[in-house]
Structure formats: structure tokens, C-alpha cells
């Protein structure tokens, strides 16, 4: 099939870019640890350790090697999944991540699911109902509503949700992740802003596509509404929506750090804030690396899937 080649070339180029971004991330985290004030070994061993012990430890860790050698060793360890030892918890950082990541991942995925399931149908429906400047009150209400939601940062949203549902009404748990209902508030807090942004974008994109000649052509075939919107409209409206959706997902992974702290969620976000306050450098370094890598990979996947869905995006790229 001749369509395969441009897509493969595109995917290869994106993979290369991903590799470069990951390398940059590794270099940045490496530099950050070298720039940290004070002696990490001294910090790790405590003030009571003798100078010889510190020296020996330095040598053992390779901290006396030239910077490039250290970078190479560091990159090698990271690639093998060895992130060193937490200074505060005295155990492998990898184990801590393994414990904390699943809760964060569940939170993010659920929130993203909510975003997609609410924003896409909402945006398309509002576009269809307000097309050609009809029903201005509906359009106005939509713009105002999403605008208000968008201007409330997620920690305020989280705080408001806690106050309303957790405290005043007492319907839902406000901390921890013990029960299914524990997910409701954090997921809502995470999903609200991206939903508003994506719904707006979906509406704009849908309006743009609705004005295309090929939609009129599809109408002229008198297909059922389902076929018209799902088959003819959605794939064309999705390109920009998914691209931004990917970026929003990345931003959402960052937002979990904040939201988790409001809800005392046993995820990686609470871990990293504790680690920063406790100056647990290896742990911070590892969280930044892992979350960064996840965001980069997700964005790559979305781009590549888009390339399959909408072959024109490849042409535009190249």
C-alpha cells in the first residue's frame, strides 16, 4: 500500500524527536543534580559521617569521574530503570515509583476519559446547534460557561469541590483513595479545565468542518445523522482536537501533582512535593524523569495515531 511509506517516515521522524527529547530530559535532570547546593553524599550520609567515609562513598558513586563519564553512567542507569536510592526513605527510588505511579495513572486516565467523553460530544453538539449563527443564546451560554471554568485553576476547583461535596454536603470522601467514590472529586478537579478547553476547541473545529464543501456533499447523500457526524465530520474535526488533547493530557499529568496534594492522593504527586520539601534529590529527579517521559511518549502516540486517522497531517508535517 502506497499510504504506508509517508506514515512510516513520519513515525520514524517523530521517534527520533522523542529520543532527542528524552535525552534532553536526562541531561537536564543530570545537570540539576550537579547544581544542587551542598554535597549530596554528605547530605545522604549525615553530618556524623567521617571525611574518609564520604570520600569512599564519593568514589564508589563515581562522583570523582569526569562529568561526561558520569553523565554516561547516569544515562545507563536510568535506561535500566535504576534511579538510585531515596535519601529520606532509604530504599530504591524505583520501588517508590512502582508503588505510587499506579494511583496517579488511574487518576489521570479516568480524568482524561471524562474529558474526552464530555468535551467531544458537547463541542460537536453545540457546534451543530449553533451553526451559521443560529441560537445565539446557547452559543453565548456555552462560551461564558467554559470561560468561567477555564479561568478557575485546578487547585481552586479542587478546594471548591472539597468544600461543597466533601464538607458542606458530606456526600463524597475528600482524602485518600480507599473507595471508588474517592475518585469522584479528584477526577472532577483534574478534568474540569481541560474539558472546557477541549469542548471549545471541538466546537470551533466542528464549525469549521461543517462549513466545508465535503460536508455539504455528504449531506447531499442523505445519510443518517450518525453516519454524517461520526464518519464524515468527526475524523476531520479531530486532528486539532486530539493534538491539543495530547498537550492537555501532558498538562494534566503535571496538574495531578497539585490535585493529589489537595486530596492526599497516594500518588506520585504527593510524593514529589514531600521530596522537594525534604530535599530528597534522587526522588525528585526520578519523578521529573518518569513523568516527563510519560508525557513525551503520550504526545508521540497521539501524533502517530493522528497520522493514521488523517493522512493529510503527514503532508502538513513534511
Amino acid at each position, binding site marked *: 500500500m502506497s*499510504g504506508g511509506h509517508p506514515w512510516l517516515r513520519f513515525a520514524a521522524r517523530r521517534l527520533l524527536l522523542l529520543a532527542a*527529547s528524552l535525552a534532553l530530559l536526562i541531561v537536564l535532570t543530570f545537570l540539576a543534580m550537579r547544581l544542587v*547546593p551542598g554535597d549530596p553524599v554528605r547530605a545522604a550520609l549525615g553530618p556524623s559521617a567521617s571525611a574518609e567515609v564520604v570520600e569512599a562513598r564519593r568514589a564508589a558513586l563515581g562522583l570523582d569521574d569526569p562529568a561526561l563519564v558520569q553523565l554516561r553512567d547516569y544515562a545507563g542507569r536510568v535506561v535500566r530503570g535504576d534511579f538510585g536510592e531515596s535519601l529520606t526513605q532509604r530504599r530504591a527510588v524505583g520501588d517508590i515509583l512502582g508503588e505510587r505511579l499506579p494511583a496517579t495513572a488511574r487518576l489521570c486516565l479516568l480524568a482524561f476519559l471524562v474529558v474526552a467523553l464530555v468535551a467531544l460530544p458537547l463541542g460537536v453538539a453545540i457546534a451543530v446547534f449553533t451553526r451559521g*449563527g443560529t441560537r445565539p443564546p446557547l452559543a453565548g451560554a456555552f462560551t461564558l460557561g467554559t470561560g468561567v471554568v477555564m*479561568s478557575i485553576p485546578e487547585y481552586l476547583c479542587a*478546594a471548591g469541590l472539597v468544600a461543597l461535596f466533601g464538607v458542606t454536603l458530606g456526600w463524597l470522601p475528600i482524602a485518600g483513595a480507599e473507595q471508588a467514590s474517592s475518585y469522584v472529586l479528584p477526577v472532577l478537579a483534574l478534568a474540569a479545565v481541560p474539558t472546557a478547553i477541549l469542548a471549545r476547541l471541538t466546537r470551533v473545529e466542528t464549525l469549521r468542518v461543517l462549513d466545508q464543501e465535503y460536508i455539504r*456533499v*455528504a449531506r447531499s447523500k442523505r445519510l443518517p445523522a450518525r453516519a454524517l457526524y461520526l464518519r464524515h465530520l468527526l475524523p476531520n474535526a479531530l486532528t486539532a482536537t486530539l493534538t491539543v488533547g495530547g498537550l492537555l493530557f501532558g498538562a494534566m499529568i503535571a496538574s495531578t501533582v497539585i490535585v493529589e496534594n489537595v486530596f492526599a492522593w497516594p500518588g506520585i504527586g504527593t510524593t514529589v512535593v514531600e521530596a522537594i520539601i525534604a530535599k530528597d534529590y534522587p526522588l525528585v529527579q526520578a519523578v521529573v524523569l518518569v513523568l516527563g517521559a510519560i508525557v513525551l511518549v503520550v504526545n508521540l502516540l497521539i501524533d502517530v495515531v493522528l497520522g493514521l486517522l*488523517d493522512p493529510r497531517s503527514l503532508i502538513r508535517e513534511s
Partner: protein
Amino acid sequence: MRERLDLTPGRIALLAVLAALLALVVAGPPLWSGAADEIDTAAMRAGASAAHPFGTDQLGRDLLARVLVATRLSLLLALATAALGFALGVAVGLLPALLGPRLRSVVATTINLFVAIPGLLLALLVATIVGIGAKGAVIALGVALAPQAARLTQTLAASVGGAEYVAASRVVGVRWPRLLGRHILPNIAAPLVLQFAMATSQALLALSALSFLGLGVQSPDYDWGALLSVGLDRMYVTPMAALGPGLAIVLAGVAINAGGDVLAAAIATDAPQRARRRRRAAGLAPSATLAAPVAEALADEAAPAAAASAAAAPAAAAPAADAAPGDVPAAPAVDPAPAPPAPAGPPAALRVERLSVSLPAAEGAVTPVREVSLTVGHGERVGIVGESGSGKSLTALAAAALLEPPFAVETAAHEIAGEPLFARAGTGRRRLLGRSLAVVFQDPLSALNPALRLRRQLTEAAIEHRDLDAGEATEAAIERLRELRLTRPEQRLGQHPHELSGGMRQRAVIAMGMTVRPGLIVADEPTTALDVAVEREVLAALRRANDEDGTAILLISHDIGVIASFCERVLVMYGGRIVEELPAADLRERAVHPYTRALLAAVPDMETDRDRPLPTIPGRPPTAAELPASCAFAARCAFASERCRAQQPPLVALDGAPGRRVACWHPAPDAAAPAPAAAAGDEREEERR
């Protein structure tokens, strides 16, 4: 100025909020820091009261005073963060515009790599190095902001750097500081200011978030985020303790954005003039104003939210773009002769009575199609001819029930295959239309859905309305494509439109309209932009459908030659009305309307040199907004009289000629009369000599 700056009441209110905030930055701490720091052990953790509207904190300090005092620190830190981010970002982002091509791409790639890493993660990393606290938070978030700012600057500078006068400046040896200061920076200032404002409000939110988490401003200092985390614990006792700082954060964020909008608008309205002055001073030829491209780049680069709100402006304006606002005369009360009754036998494929299409415009509504009545008999080939803007395509789309809001369609009667269209609703109407009527569209490049393979697009209608299965529908599509001489049709069906050449797409679009074998095909300019060979094939395919399946054809074209040779009956449209209807056989010799005759006179005959540009009718047709209450052709008509300029000629049956109608006060009596466009024709003759 007010309009240019887009000062809506909401925006004015936000600007007032912004002014109040700035006043608080200056006056807040001196006025209220006493109250804010006053420890009152008698009123620790008090609820809201007249003395303490937001309540008090754990030491009995008044929270309202603390919110007011915190304005200074919150806003100054946000400003510092945005300033740091932009200083770094703009410096790096301008590099590509000044460097050679190779270094430029290195810098651009590096910027892109940094942009890909989420800002909050960068901030966390930097915060670990610098340490927690206000300074750490500002540096961390500033660094995290820099890649975005760099990319924005780079995009903007590239759009300006590509402009001709910048290139010219380089050629004449303008040095780079001058290039930067005089040409690039002034032209990207407006979007940069806007983005700076957005970055400041983002920074405010992010700083508050860090303080809220305990990573930002540390006690004894406090900003809104720190107050929020204090207030959150006491949400259920004193909601205002948390709502107060929360509201302050949101309101300040929105107000800063509004301020940025207004400032950017002020700069943008001013920039073209200044830029022009500068260009003149530099002795360079002026180029197109830069405000537009920069605004576009901005729209591309701005957050989706900004793009969304921009696009949320009334979409109605767009389709009405070519209908210039103007005084719209009401449609005169003319009772046109009804379309001639269809001959007995099977019901007419299409019958519309008094069809009008209107469109809301800035002042009132415009009505580009007025009181058109037409019938297409069973198996008949009918043509509508007219210049662009005559309303013929709108008439065809309205007849096919394909016009959408903002177009409004009115008819006295609308029947498809003998069935009143509006007697049915929903699925019933959809099925009636799907089985009885197909449309072939004019622009093959935009008529195909770019995301779907041809197979889907060429079979779905037949599957839906002819109850074929996928295999049979594919066979039918291949057959249609073969008739149109598309090479390797089986293979083409597996391809996406962008993989096909323009000619292939044209054939595919035409085949697509013919796969249902309906009772009527409406073909809207199907041969425009085709070469003569393809045009012949398309007409032959339509003709075959007409001969073999008895499909009636309504052919829309500006080419009276095509209409005359293909159709049995011809409707001539001008200014949104039918001005003449006659059998195609009568067209060349017996047309009586001056416009029809002018159209005919403009057709090249065998002797005409084909390489010459075609002669055209002098003048241009009126736009929908200009349609007069009199004869729309009067301005271009050689026979126009006072009556023509005062009254609308009704469409009436022509005496003694069955099946013929004409709308003219002075129809030419017969073929011997001088051709109305003769004068124009003579002029052209002279030009040729």
C-alpha cells in the same frame, strides 16, 4: 478608538478591577499591614463578622486585610516571573531571526525540545536546585515559562523576518541591532504584550499553586496562595476565608488578561503607522501592513482558548461576506406566472413554486434568490444559465434542500418526484430525497472528504438508498468510474483523495453523484474548470444516465453553449430571478430577453479564434445587496427605458408561444430584431481590428 480597542462593558469592568489591583499594589501594605499583622488572641479563628468580613486566622489576624496586603506580593512575584521568562525566551527566540540557516535550525530544534517538556516539571527541577521559597518559585517558574516565550518569539520573528522589507533591509546592509529595534521588535510587540499578559496571569496561578502546596512564599510572608491554604482548612466554618483569596486569584488572572488584550489592541492599531513611517525613513518600498500576518501568527500561537473565543464571534458574518451591506429594497409585489404545468404521465422530478433564499446581513436581510418557480419533468434535461451571482447555484441547492442556516429558504410549494417535501419529516424526508435526488458538485478538490477512502465515499449513498450490500455498491461504483474513463478504478477506491490527481478527483466526484441512480441529478457547474475532453465525458455520462435510467437532469452552468447543447429546456437567471424560459431549440434564434441575447452574443462560434479571450457582457451583475426594485439588468441593457428603471418586469407567459416565459418590458419581437448587445459586439469587433 473605543471600537478598535473592542471595549465591551465586561472588559471595561475588568479594566476597572485591574486599576483597583494596581492601586492595591501601591497602597495596600501601607494602609492595611497594621491590621493584617495585628495579633488578636481574643478572636483566633473567628468566623466572618462585621469586624472581620473574611474571619481571622489562627493568630486572630484579620484575613480581609491580609488578602488586601498580599496583593502586592502576589502580583509583583507574578510580574517578576513573567518578566524573567520573557527576558530569557525573547532573547533566545530572536536568535533564529539573526542567525544563518544552519544555526537557526539548531536553535529552533532546541526550543522545540524544551517546549515538549511540561513546564511544571521543569519548575520542580529548578525549584530543587534553587530551594523552596519565593525566590526559588519565581526562578523556577520563570525558567519553565521561557521555552514557550522563545517559541512564540521565534514564530513571530520568522513571520516578520520573511517580510520583504526585512529582506531588503538586509540587502542594503542594515545592521542587526537596527534591524531588531526598528523592524522586528515593533512589529511583534502587540502579540508579545498579549502573551506577556497571559504569562503573567499564568504565573500568578502557578505561584499561588506553589505557595498553596507550601513550595512557594514561606511564612512570615504570605501571598494569596498561602492564604488560600490557610483558608481551606476552615472552609466549612468561614467559606470566605478560602473563597476570598481564591476569588482574588481568579479575578486578578482574568483582569490581567483583559488588560493585555486592550494594550495589544492599542499597539496593533498603532504599529502599522509607525512601521510605515520607519520604512519610509529607511527608504524602503512599503509592503503590505504587518498587522494582519502578525495577528494570524498570534491566533495560531495563542492558547486554544484564545482561538476559540476569537472564532466564537458571530459566524453569520462569514457567508454574508460578499453581500455588501446596503439598502435592501423590499421584493416588489409581482405575481410571476407559475411554471408551465408538467405534461401528463409520471410526476415531475422536481417542482418548486416561488422559491426565495435570503440571508441575514448587517442591515436587514438580503435576498439573492427571488420568487423562482421551476419544474423539471420526469426524465427531462433542464438547464439554468446565468453569470456568477445570478443566484443559479443557490437556487439549485435550495431546490435540493441542501441550504443550511444562515440561509433561509421559502417556497410556496416544493415537490420531489410528485411528493410534497415538507409533508414528511425526519427519516421519511431523508429517504425521499436520498432515493429521488442526487447532486454533482462543482469543486472536485473540496467535494471529497479528505479523511475517507474513495470506496466509502462512492458506495455509502447506494448502500443507504439502493439497499445494495458493500460488494454490489463497489461494483456499481467501479462501473461508474469506468464510464468516466478513470484508470484502474478498483485500485483508486482504496485510496484517499490526496493520493489522486486533480483530474481523477473530478471524475470521482461526478461518479459519486451518479451512484444512486435517482430520478433527478442536480449538477452544479459540473464542467467548470475541466478541459474539453473531460467535459465531454462528463456530459456524456450524464446523458447516459438520462437515456438509460430516465434520470432527469437539472444542469447549472454559466456556459450557455453547454446548456444549449445538453438541455431540452433552458431557464435564464439574472439578479436572483428567472428572466426567460424557453425550449433549447428556440434559444439561438428566438430568445427575446435582452440578457439572454447578450449571453448568446458572447458565445464564440465556429469562426471565432479560440485563443482570444471570450467577449463578455459589459458591466457586472448586481450583488444580492444591490438588487433594485426595478429590472436588475437595466444598468447593462441597451433597451432600458424609464419604465425598466422604475418597475420590476413580471415573469409572464410569452404570447402565442406555449412553454415560454419572459420577464422584460421590451422583449425583442423576433429574431430579426437587432441583437440587444449589438452595440457592445461592434465595439469588440473594432478592438479586434
